[in-house]
């Protein structure tokens, strides 16, 4: 491994002494999930609850000339009908980001203009879903249909229809040219770098509109409680941002809003949005009744969010020996009709992707344009899957051109321990960021272990392809991500002790199904020296739990976990202080484990947590409790190596992934079983991104395939053999050495598969998803002479 210290090995002794962290414990919320407990947003009956429905725009771009709701209002069972005339006009973003949100404030609760098929025209609340649906049909709307622009390459052209011509939107980069955001950053001088290079490679790549497809669609229930405060029970990743945004949009004080996040049926970034809460709240206020809005599956596909489609131009300059000297990525992306997460997702496409290579010269330029298409937003990977598809496919091409094993190319060029990534310093969350120092790096071991799993060395040399039309190949990709947004993401936690020696843990962190409640409980239990059952967690309730930005940017384990560890350490000090009194021993000779505080000296005195709790409460009159806030000024990257073996049918173009090996460096895996689950889930979504998933629009901007039959996600039978490897390192900035894991593995499948296809049949596919027809077309256009001969001799 080039003599470098490729990563810090885990402190084995430390690991052995840990009783809860690093263990495969069951999910703390698992029992209610396997028994069908009423745990999700919609699992409540509220007397008098109405059903809300949104009237979606049938046009991609139109002005509402006239809207008449009188017939809808007159329908028996209808309690509220809202149009833009009835609600406050507050420009905002639906992106659930820290204030001030870097996304353009270009969205309105309801507007007199609609900007995509599915945009809100009106909303109703009625006594049943059927009545609500009937009421929607009774709303008379006269549209002035405007020319629409759906092709992102046409959006900036002179004469293109202006999508945001309203004067009150803010933070739009150039509304006249439909540019939501623009980014240009450079370190060193790419001009100089390319001049120094012996070879320059430049290619264009395209990526598609992918949908999150949480099995639980977006759902929100709003009501006024006995104090007339607005309660919002909602499937969100960002309860606190949601509270702030809804209060602003509905023009009520934050203190009058109470957001409750129950169990969430998957988020993946799609619920890092304030999506239904504002309109549902408005309907509840208008009707003075509880109101539920639940997207149907079809609505979820085009009225929720998706991954930003991009066109990427990647250019790299290398020395003869394969050393990368300069890299440049130029991106055109579309955010659809509204700029949710527009500059931040695209900023990541540069800042988290280019620094994987140690080039001295890097340049990233990006235009994010509006189109009259469904809105893009946050999606697991957050701009990285697009960027890594381009970069890792180009790198493979360069290695092959130079006659190098792609593994060697990576070994020589990738970022390593002790390196500082300067591009991140220039590209923060919508502003200047902070430099990233690599304090832990298991990437070399990730590569070696995943390569072994796939049988790289042997299979790169020879695969038993013979003359068959089924040809095998192997490919690889290396990727990284962040762990929280440096200097922006922060979290807090609060702990209090109960009479039985258990602890209530309150965190604003939002478990959306990935297991945050379990991991945070493990961190608390480990720090307090109690067993996991002694920690009872409440998460994501703005009335009860302290602040947290929410579940995004791979931040929960490292940032919220950091807050929990800090709070638990403070509570532990209080416990030890009292124990010191009870045991007549100095604090520095005390330790706690397994629900007991004991002296570390030979005398072996001890007191149980329960006895100590009773002493605190009824003798000392002391509530043992404390809280803490936490943030980091750096975002330690988790690393990942993805290796794929594919089989390509040269007669049909069908690509079958035979085996996918993923090795990830997450720092310490607080719960290895859950960490593996994060990898495998990300890989499944990455496989769909690579091969099958795309939300298609027709020429009028209408969704073509908004259902699970026509939008193909990987099912249990479609999955290849998966190998999941955790390469643990010890991250100094993370609780117990943890970084993050949930996003990084989604980046690798697409480039690894594209590279394996090249290895198998010698064609480069630079567009996602890689459909059989694309492979077949490429095979006919680019079939290399030797392969042609081989096939002819059959």
């Amino acid at each position, binding site marked *: 491994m080039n003599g470098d210290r490729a990563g810090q090995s885990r402190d084995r002794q430390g690991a052995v002494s840990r009783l809860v962290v690093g263990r*495969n414990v*069951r*999910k703390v*919320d*698992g*029992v*209610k*999930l*396997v*028994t*069908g*407990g*009423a*745990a*999700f947003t*919609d*699992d409540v*009956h509220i007397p008098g609850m109405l059903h809300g429905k949104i009237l979606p725009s049938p046009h991609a771009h139109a002005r509402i000339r006239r809207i008449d709701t009188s017939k809808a209002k007159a329908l028996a069972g209808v309690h509220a009908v809202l149009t833009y005339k009835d609600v406050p006009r507050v420009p905002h973003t639906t992106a659930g980001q820290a204030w001030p949100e870097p996304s353009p404030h270009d969205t309105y609760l309801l507007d007199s203009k609609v900007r995509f098929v599915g945009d809100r025209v009106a909303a109703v609340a009625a006594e049943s879903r059927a009545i609500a649906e009937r009421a929607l049909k009774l709303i008379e709307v006269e549209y002035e249909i405007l020319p629409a622009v759906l092709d992102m390459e046409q959006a900036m052209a002179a004469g293109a229809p202006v999508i945001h011509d309203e004067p009150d939107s803010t933070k739009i980069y150039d509304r006249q040219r439909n540019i939501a955001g623009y980014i240009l950053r450079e370190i060193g001088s790419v001009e100089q770098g390319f001049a120094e290079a012996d070879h320059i490679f430049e290619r264009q790549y395209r990526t598609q509109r992918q949908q*999150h*497809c*949480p*099995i*639980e*669609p977006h759902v929100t229930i709003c009501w006024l409680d006995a104090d007339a405060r607005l309660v919002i029970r909602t499937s969100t990743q960002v309860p606190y941002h949601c509270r702030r945004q809804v209060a602003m949009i509905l023009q009520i004080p934050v203190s009058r809003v109470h957001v409750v996040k129950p*169990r*969430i*049926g*998957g988020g*993946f970034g799609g619920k890092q949005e304030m999506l239904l809460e504002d309109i549902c709240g408005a309907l509840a206020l208008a009707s003075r009744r509880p109101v539920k809005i*639940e997207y*149907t*599956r079809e609505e979820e596909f085009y009225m929720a969010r998706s991954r930003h489609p991009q066109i990427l131009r990647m250019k790299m300059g290398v020395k003869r020996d394969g050393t990368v000297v300069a890299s440049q990525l130029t991106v055109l992306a579309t955010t659809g009709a509204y700029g949710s997460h527009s500059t931040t997702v695209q900023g990541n496409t540069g800042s988290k992707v280019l620094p994987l290579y140690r080039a001295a010269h890097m340049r990233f330029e990006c235009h994010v344009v509006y189109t009259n298409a469904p809105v893009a937003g946050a999606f697991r990977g957050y701009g990285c899957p697009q960027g890594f598809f381009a970069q890792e496919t180009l790198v493979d091409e360069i290695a092959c051109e130079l006659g190098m094993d792609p593994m060697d190319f990576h070994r020589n060029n990738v970022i390593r321990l002790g390196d500082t990534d300067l591009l991140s310093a220039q590209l923060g969350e919508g502003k200047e960021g902070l430099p990233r120092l690599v304090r832990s790096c298991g990437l070399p071991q990730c590569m070696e272990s995943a390569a072994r799993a796939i049988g790289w060395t042997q299979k790169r040399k020879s695969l038993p392809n013979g003359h068959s039309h089924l040809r095998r190949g192997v490919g690889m990709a290396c990727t990284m991500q962040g762990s929280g947004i440096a200097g922006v993401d922060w979290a807090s936690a609060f702990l209090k002790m109960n009479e039985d020696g258990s602890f209530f843990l309150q965190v604003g962190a939002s478990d*959306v*199904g*990935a*297991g945050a409640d379990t991991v945070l409980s493990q961190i608390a239990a480990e720090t307090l020296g109690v067993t996991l059952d002694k920690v009872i967690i409440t998460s994501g309730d703005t009335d009860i739990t302290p602040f947290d930005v929410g579940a995004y940017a791979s931040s929960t384990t490292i940032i919220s976990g950091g807050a929990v560890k800090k709070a638990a350490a403070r509570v532990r000090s209080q416990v030890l202080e009292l124990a010191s009194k009870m045991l007549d021993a100095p604090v520095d000779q005390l330790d706690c484990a397994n629900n007991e505080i004991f002296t570390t000296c030979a005398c072996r005195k001890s007191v149980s947590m329960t006895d100590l709790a009773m002493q605190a409460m009824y003798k000392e009159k002391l509530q043992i409790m404390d809280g803490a806030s936490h943030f980091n000024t750096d975002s330690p990257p988790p690393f990942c190596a993805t290796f794929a073996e594919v089989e390509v049918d040269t007669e049909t173009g069908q690509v079958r992934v035979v085996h996918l090996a993923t090795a990830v460096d997450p720092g310490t895996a607080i719960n290895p*079983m*859950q960490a*593996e*689950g994060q*990898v*495998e*889930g*990300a*890989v*499944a*979504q990455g496989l769909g991104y690579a091969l099958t998933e795309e939300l298609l629009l027709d020429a009028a901007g209408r969704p073509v395939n908004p*259902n*699970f*039959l026509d939008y193909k*996600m*990987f*099912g*249990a*039978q479609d*999955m290849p053999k*998966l190998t*999941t490897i955790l390469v643990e390192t010890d991250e100094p900035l993370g609780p117990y050495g943890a970084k993050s894991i949930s996003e990084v593995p989604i980046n690798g499948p697409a480039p690894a598969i594209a590279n394996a296809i090249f290895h198998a049949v010698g064609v480069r596919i630079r567009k996602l998803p890689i459909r059989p027809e694309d492979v077949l077309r490429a095979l006919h256009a680019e079939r290399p002479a030797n392969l042609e001969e081989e096939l002819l001799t059959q």
Partner: protein
Amino acid sequence: MKNMELHLTVNGESLNWTIAPGELLLDVLRRQGYFGVKRGCEKGECGACAVLLDGMPINSCLMFAAQAEGRQILTIEGVADGGKLDPMQEAFLDHGAVQCGFCTGGMVLSAKALLERRPDPTEEEVREMLAGHLCRCTGYRKPVEAVLAAASKKRNTARRMKPVAEVVR
């Protein structure tokens, strides 16, 4: 349209409900408080609303409630024996097969039905069964492992139990 009476058994309990003729079984079950039956697509594509109808898995979004007249329904709420989890539920927890949990109920029910038919299923058979259940969280590897582990445990237990079972018979 006139409401109608529905007589059925849910989780061993004999029930009489008043329903509207066009109502889906999914909607009626949820209205009656069986929230473990999930609404994921309403088109029979995702499997989150699966229940066992006389022991066979069906998507409750594709069936009129009226068609359940006189039938036995098992929902995920009826799988555990009081406070004691079913071995399939234990296996899902122990193998990390539950993430968000929204698809879990349907998977557990279908898996139980599979083991009734095929006590010793192959991985292929397990995957074929799970193909009716979309999961966006797990990548299916851990659910497959959980079902295979539960099957293996059930066979071992059955082997140990055999003499007793014979006596009872």
